[in-house]
């Protein structure tokens, strides 16, 4: 019995070594493109398969959280194995771009999306928009009872009833924008006020929406499209999104985006991939595919029915390209008020 286990272990170790050698050799064959994707496999895989079908270019995709993928590219530095970085968040693209690890994109690519959804330094371009909303539990609250502005959330009536994901990049981007538009002091007071109101912290947007659905909290500060993702699994979840009023920092529209990694040897193919993400087909998929509900950024593609048009969401008009620079002080503020520990 023990000998058998020993033999099995040795055999498997050998197998492992063989598999390693295999992966090492198969890497260098055909012209393949390596994508580091911070976007979830279940959401984007069909899109990637369509790209391969259209162009014949094979994709090797490494999936992880956007920040892990960004950290990996930063640690790899000039030796990065990635050709393209596809990120959930503009801020993370900004970080990588600031380290000089993303290439400048052609003007024709950049011009396809509105100016605030692309990097001023031209090193990344937005692929889809997501609005900040207040998700609310429909069995506990009516639409009219949901606060019209995030400033109301520090009122005592919401004590213990609010959930948010403090370490999530889109929440942090929202705080960064709030800090720019409303000032550091007001932002700090608001964050401290929420904390005094027993706000609950969750790991990510999905967990917040699910907590709202369970009634663990009644309001959640999240991006709008997570609700639509979750409805695929749980169609009856008692949650709706409340979009915020004009000029409210809570009405920020953030974006996911893509950039080409500087060390790539497949620039042409990488460029085709970026352009594919901005093609009408991909934009429709991102906007109205199964479980998808993001805002398309290219003109002529309509968002999922039932969503307010992007033009009607009058949040702060901030160029998301600033986030690479404005995120660090915001995160420091979050550290300071004890949101990130």
């Amino acid at each position: 019995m023990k000998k058998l286990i020993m033999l099995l272990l040795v055999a498997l170790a050998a197998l492992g070594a063989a598999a390693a050698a295999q992966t090492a050799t198969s890497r260098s064959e055909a012209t393949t493109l390596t994508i580091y994707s911070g976007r979830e496999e279940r959401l984007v895989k069909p899109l990637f398969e369509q790209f391969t079908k259209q162009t014949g270019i094979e994709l090797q995709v490494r999936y992880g959280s956007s920040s892990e993928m960004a950290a990996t590219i930063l640690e790899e530095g000039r030796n990065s194995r990635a050709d393209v970085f596809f990120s959930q968040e503009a801020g993370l693209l900004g970080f990588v771009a600031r380290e000089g690890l993303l290439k400048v994109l052609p003007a024709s690519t950049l011009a396809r999306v509105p100016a605030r959804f692309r990097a001023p330094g031209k090193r990344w371009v937005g692929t889809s928009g997501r609005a900040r909303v207040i998700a609310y539990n429909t069995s506990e609250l009516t639409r009219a009872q949901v606060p019209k502005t995030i400033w109301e959330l520090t009122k005592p009536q919401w004590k213990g009833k609010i959930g948010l994901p403090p370490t999530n990049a889109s929440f942090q981007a929202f705080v960064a924008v709030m800090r720019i538009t409303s000032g550091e002091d007001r932002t700090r007071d608001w964050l401290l006020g929420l904390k005094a109101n027993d706000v609950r912290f969750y790991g990510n947007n999905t967990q917040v929406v699910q907590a709202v659905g369970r009634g663990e909290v009644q309001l959640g500060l999240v991006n709008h499209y997570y609700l639509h993702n979750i409805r695929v699994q749980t169609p009856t979840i008692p949650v709706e999104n409340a979009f915020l009023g004009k000029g409210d920092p809570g009405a920020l529209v953030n974006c996911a985006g893509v950039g080409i990694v500087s060390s790539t040897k497949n620039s042409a193919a990488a460029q085709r991939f970026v352009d594919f993400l901005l093609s009408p087909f991909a934009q429709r998929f991102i906007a109205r595919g199964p479980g998808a509900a993001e805002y398309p950024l290219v003109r002529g593609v309509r968002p999922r029915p039932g969503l307010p048009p992007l033009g009607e969401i009058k949040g702060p008009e901030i160029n998301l390209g600033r986030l690479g620079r404005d995120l660090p002080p915001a995160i420091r503020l979050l550290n300071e008020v004890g949101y990130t520990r």
Partner: protein
Amino acid sequence: MRRKRGRRPPLLLWALASAAVGAALLPLGYLVLRGLGADDEARAAVGVRPTAELVLDTVFLVTGVVALTLVLGTVLAWLVVRSDLPMRRLLGVALTLPLVIPSYVGALVLLGALGPKGLLQQALEPLGVDRLPDLYGYEGALLALTLSTYPYVFLIAASALRSVDVSTEEAARSLGRGPLRVFLTVTLPAVRPALGAAGLLVALYVLADFGAVSLMQYPTLTRAVYLQYESLLDRNAAAILALILVALAAVVVWLEGRIRNRGVRYRSSPGAGRRASRIPLGRWRWAAFTGCATVALLFLALPLGVLGWWAAEGTATGPPFRLAWSAAIDSTVASAAAAGCAVVAVVPIALLAWRHPSRPSRLLERIAYVPNAVPGIAVALSLVFFGARYGGFLYQSLSLLVFAYVVRFLPQALATTRSALDLVDPRLEDASRSLGRSSRRTLLRVVLPLARPGVLAGAALVFLSTMKELPATLLLRPIGFDTLATEIWTDTSIGAYADAAPSALLLILVSAPFVYALSARRAWELGIPD
């Protein structure tokens, strides 16, 4: 008790052991590099006061989990091994099985069952219960981590209790001591080194855990390290926090070393291999059974039940569930390779410390434990850093991933191998030498066979840990190499628990035979020749 003999320092052994420990220290090198790169801003971001609070919170949790698991694990082990508990074989396996439940799955399941608006509360709703005690925070983290770590104590305590010298206990009893006093004054001191080793594994596990503490919203140093990376504020600040964590681990290792250096080691006489007679529990028999069964229910049946419930719910509303067999195969291959490599890396370190005890050799052994407390994400990024620069084609290959596993889980194999060697009677080695066998042949034919159960147990522990590993797998796996852990992550990250449940059940299913092998009696009768 240790022999001091003027032996030639075995160069080969030293070289092998140093190489293994050196490799395990690679992530530390990276952290120091990053820590030195920190500017004032990064240091300010770490902050003295908040960091001191984090250290306290972390120590609080580690102490709680270690204390709870030591008591729970030892009592359960004593009941299963030394008493006339009903159905003890079945319970032995059932109490070991939670080892295969990853702490993030354990925490998720506990929240799903006992959390606010969880299954328990839904069940109690008709009775008018609309709020349960809050699971989030310290209590939840304590419960979830106890769930996933007490089997370490249970296994190691059970094996030690089996190999305790029965004659000493009998002598104590014949001199008029009651069973409880015999246990406290004779048995417990004899198994103390083993309990120390088990406590060390638990402490290191808790120090490095992210999954459970993040779901339970309890602040620890490891969580802070992850959050620093998550918000990408400063990799240097993250490195400083990780180094503080490593220092904390060094303290734990040092403490455990002090416990190990006391205590009784090996058997007194050849007759000591006899099996101990079981102690009748009398009227406590069924109460003890109920206690053990409750633990098994809470830590095994409940998680399996909730996962099964989720899977069934998913099948009811969506497509029939899909079993990720190819991911199961990838997981098994990688884990087996890691287990094999870990054993190869660990044997020289343990042999050196056992056979040639000296300050440097013991120090080398102790150092090997410390990197275990480095959070998985830091280990992964350090290997990204070194791999992308100097790894060539090895980077993002299975070999480097297996290397990462070995670095992370080396101590588990080391602890069991070392405990097994400690129980080998040196007189057997002397006898073999005096009968003319060379020292190398003695090692291969006498010492290692005697220690084999411990070595195999170490391999099994590494295998099980690797099956559950997530952060290093995500960053270092070859593209397209999906393990069960990454499958579970892929589903839970979009909240698709129903899709994740079959993968989690499959993970438990594939790991179960190894746990059974671990809990089987023979594998744990350390040091007793076949």
